[in-house]
């Protein structure tokens, strides 16, 4: 059978699966309920943003659209300086950690997937087994280590536990399985060394997985709370979540300012989501099916 012969049947199939005819009443009801549910889901985010744009006198009314939206709360909070610092700290930490994970998780995943060497299975099982250990069990030893080496209250202290993750390594290993061995062999014959093969041949072939990994690691570190809370002491070293937590806890802080702080720490990830939506949804599916 040639391609032209198959085509009409697949087209017909697609048509029966996605009819263009208008919804019947049952389908409309389903759509309406899903739509209302979806609106309810984003309400907390909508109220957070709306309140951050309100004047104090209208904060406690239920109106979602402010009467006179303004950015005074943002100017106030950022001029105070602390949120500016916390934002910069969080950004630096999340970016460095993400770069580190993308490089090392994929290097280890690649090695475990494409090389045959004694000890390979043991290394794989050892790394995988760290998935079982909860972070909370490690924070006390990490704290003691940081105290001993003077890492408390430093960027390195906040970052070091997350520079590589077993989850990312495992994810990347699964994806390098899709890279044909022939490509790597061909590159070897062309005289590339193993580092060049990994970086210039294998890595470009798993870009969607790298994008998903990068987004997960970034989101995880951007929102990380318990370890930065433990390892930082001085206000200038706080990350956004730790800063927001201490800011909200101060006496007599107005709720619209807390909402502004919350919006500052949420909006960047929402923007990342709106830009990379496809990669993120794919990434969740990949992580769910392979993880």
């Amino acid at each position: 059978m040639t391609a032209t012969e198959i085509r009409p049947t697949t087209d017909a199939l697609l048509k029966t699966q996605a009819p263009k005819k208008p919804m019947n009443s049952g389908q409309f009801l389903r759509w309406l309920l899903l739509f209302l549910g979806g609106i309810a889901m984003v309400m907390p985010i909508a109220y957070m943003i709306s309140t951050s744009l309100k004047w104090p006198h209208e904060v406690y009314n239920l109106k979602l659209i402010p009467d006179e939206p303004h950015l005074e709360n943002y100017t106030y909070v950022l001029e105070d300086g602390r949120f500016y610092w916390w934002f910069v700290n969080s950004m630096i930490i999340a970016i460095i950690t993400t770069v580190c994970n993308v490089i090392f998780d994929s290097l280890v995943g690649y090695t475990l997937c494409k090389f045959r060497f004694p000890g390979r299975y043991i290394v794989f099982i050892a790394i995988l087994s760290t998935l079982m250990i909860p972070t909370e069990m490690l924070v006390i030893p990490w704290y003691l280590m940081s105290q001993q080496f003077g890492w408390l209250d430093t960027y390195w202290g906040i970052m070091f536990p997350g520079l590589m993750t077993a989850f990312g390594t495992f994810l990347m290993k699964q994806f390098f399985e899709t890279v044909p061995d022939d490509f790597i062999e061909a590159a070897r014959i062309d005289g590339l060394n193993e580092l060049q093969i990994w970086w210039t041949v294998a890595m470009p072939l798993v870009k969607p997985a790298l994008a998903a990994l990068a987004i997960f690691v970034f989101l995880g570190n951007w929102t990380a709370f318990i370890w930065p809370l433990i390892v930082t002491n001085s206000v200038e070293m706080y990350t956004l979540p730790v800063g927001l937590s201490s800011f909200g806890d101060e006496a007599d802080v107005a709720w619209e300012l807390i909402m502004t702080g919350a919006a500052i720490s949420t909006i960047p990830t929402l923007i990342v989501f709106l830009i990379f939506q496809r990669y993120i949804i794919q990434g969740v599916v990949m992580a769910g099916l392979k993880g």
Partner: protein
Amino acid sequence: MYRNLTIRQKQIVWAWAFLAIPILFYGVIRFYPTGNAILISFQEWNLLGDRTWTGLDNYQKLFADPVFWKVFKNTFVYLLLGTPISLVISFVIAYHLDKTRFMHGFLRMLYFLPFMTSAVAMAWVWRWFYQPVPVGLFNNALASIGIPQFPFLQSTTWALPSVLAPAIWAGLGFQVIIFMAGLRAIPRSYYEAARIDGVSSWTVLWEITLPLLKPTIVFIVVFSSIGFLRIFDHVFNMTTNNPGGPLNSTKPLVLMIYETAFSAFDMGYAAAQTVVLFLVLLVVSLIQLRLLRDS
């Protein structure tokens, strides 16, 4: 030297060169601390003085501590409420969303958006919603339709579900996406066969869809259970004025660990609690895998 090696030997050299830094990392940052945590759990240590061996004292103290049992119960209430509720809601959403074509991508985005938020930020937003009249959004909404105010975070009965709600809310989108991927993976031919046989859609759901979704359900149950057993960010931020309150009614194990280690500086006692947390996570995951895979 290197030139004289066979291709296979060269590969071994490269492999270990690539793995050198990561192995050092996993050894120093993962394995050594794990062993150290277990070690400290058998010691008495307040961070300043000497470390002294006390055998099982920390564990005995823990099991005799009424606060621990309260916290232990709370941790399981988070699990036993959170996991089934989020599982059912996310399945219902995914099941219907899967059958909806009109604005499918937009609806999916609405449900997924909360997953991209920061737990700390959203804990503060929900904390504001829960405040009494005239501050909190929920109580203001109730007041506007004439219902007396509800003591969300003030009541020892309702504080825990109130803290749990935003944690469930934030995780729903993730589970919906996983469920939809699972639903898509079921071959169409099963449904066609059922339709030809004239089976009702309710029977199709129970006899075809749910049994075939089992791997997806196992993944979501194990994954979300681990999350609820480790709940911390939401509780800590919604109760900063009285962490885990009122009267320890919302305090989970991780918050108890945090307070023991970093407010009371009782490192040995806190380490024993982390070992208990580790065992709880391990046992719960193994039981779930066993039960769900076999049945």
